[in-house]
């Protein structure tokens, strides 16, 4: 039996990896991927807590998060394609029409 602490550490590491990637990388697709890693880090801890507490609510939320993250990714990728058509680039710091 893997102790709960390990899962919590794994989830924290995944979450921080995602956050680090989101803050440092400027490629839109990598940034979207980083957010997905953050979501999945949370999912790991939710599933672990749910198993440890013998309570289904955590796993319910995991399913909902997975479904919603898919919808979010669909919108995100559609917008990235649209942006690429306008700018021919997906580096976020090269796309800056508004300043002030």
């Amino acid at each position, binding site marked *: 039996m893997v102790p709960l602490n390990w899962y*919590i550490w794994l*989830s924290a590491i995944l*979450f921080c990896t*995602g*956050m680090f990637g*989101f803050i440092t990388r400027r490629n*839109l697709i990598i*940034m*979207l991927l980083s*957010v997905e890693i*953050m*979501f999945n*880090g*949370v999912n790991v*801890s*939710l599933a672990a*807590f749910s198993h*440890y*507490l013998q*309570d289904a*609510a*955590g796993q*319910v*939320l995991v399913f*909902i*998060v997975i479904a*919603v993250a898919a*919808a*979010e990714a669909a*919108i*995100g990728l559609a*917008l*990235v394609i*649209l*942006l690429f058509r*306008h*700018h021919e680039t997906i580096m*976020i710091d090269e*796309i*800056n*029409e*508004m300043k*002030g």
Partner: protein
Amino acid sequence: MDIYSLHPLMPEIVLALLGLCILMLELTSMKKEYIALTAMTGTLAALYFLRGSSGVLFDGMYQADGYSNYFKLIFFLNLFLSILISIKYLEVEKSSHGEFYALMVFATIGMMIMASAENMIVLYVGLELMSLSTYVLAGFLRHDSRSTESAVKYLLMGAFSTAILLYGIALSYGSTGTMDFQQIGLYINSHNLSGNPVVLLSLVLIMVSFSFKVAAAPFHMWAPDVYEGAPTPVTAFMSIGPKAAGFAVLGKVLVMVFPSLRSDWTSILIVISVLTMLTGNVMALVQTNIKRMLAYSSIAHAGYLLLGLIPGNYESFAGMMNYLFIYLFMNVGAFAVIISLRSAEFMGDEIRDYAGLAKTHPVMASLMLVFMFALAGIPPTAGFIGKFYIFSELVKSNYIWLTIAGVMFSVVSAFYYLRVVMYMYMRPPEREVVLETTPPLNLALFIAFTMIILIGVLPQAFISHAKNVFFTMYQSLL
């Protein structure tokens, strides 16, 4: 469960049916104006059902009560007025599609679910329904690269803050074993977890996430770009709706989930609100684009609203809710004027485009004057009443220096609001501005103007109403 027990959910059900209906109508060759008309009629029908809806549903996961109903009233008015000001704008942009109204309706349902949520899962679902719809709305003008850019930025920051919220939810779930707001609060209280670092971290994560959502400093950097690039009616829509929904959740979560960490969240809120008022008001001073200026002004207003949360009693919450109600009309009014300047070959969103408007279009200029005075909080407009109640509650709770800071920042805000007035009344016109108003746009302007003056002159009716609806609920908790 029979159909009658769903009664408290009727407004949401009606709106959901309306959204699906609009999507079906879009497939027919119906004129887009009629689709907008359908959307408005449906909104009014749902508003009718809101009157009697109260009760608890789904094992206490969903609760319609005075608190959530007051916010739902704000969402409905926001939806209704946003549809009114969209019709002309979408025609000018040649992007008149029925889906626009359907997305607005679905976003509103998301906000309503957020305001009624009594459970973390329901809160998350509502939040995502609202966010995903507004991301698409922000990028609705596909031919406009600025609109796409704003949608991408909104989506990235939105998804990032949602992930932070989820981590906060996971931590509070892990330390208390429940998703229910009240149960978490009771568990933290009874097991003396208020000093627990995990619980504290979960509070901080949830507050950070909602600071993103309501555009409070230092998590506001997405707002100016998003508000400037998005279609103007969408900017109006999302500078009120998601902000109000964020405050509904913040008020509920802080009071129900973390009552035993009150001293912690009060000090966090003080820091965030002062920073927010500072950034919003100072940055607005140097803007030349009026949409961007209003974006910073909406950040500043988030700061005033946060002040209403700090005392944490029902009077101060009532003041915050009133301010949102008033802010709705001033903001929609200002954006309606901006939209009326927009025509096929003229953007009309620079402040210098307003030069000499008083000479060429005196009525529109005087309306803008009223909206700017209201936003700055000058009596006898409603903006003054809203600020007055928030500040007087602060004084009653002995936050004297915070009140002084708030008043100082509103004085600063008068500079940039009155600059628009100065351009309109004291500069000669730079070019011939053609106003393109339509009956719906005029109606929105009329409603906003009347409400601002009415609340400004007769505030008592509205304030006591907000207090009454609120009193029924949190009496025992606060």
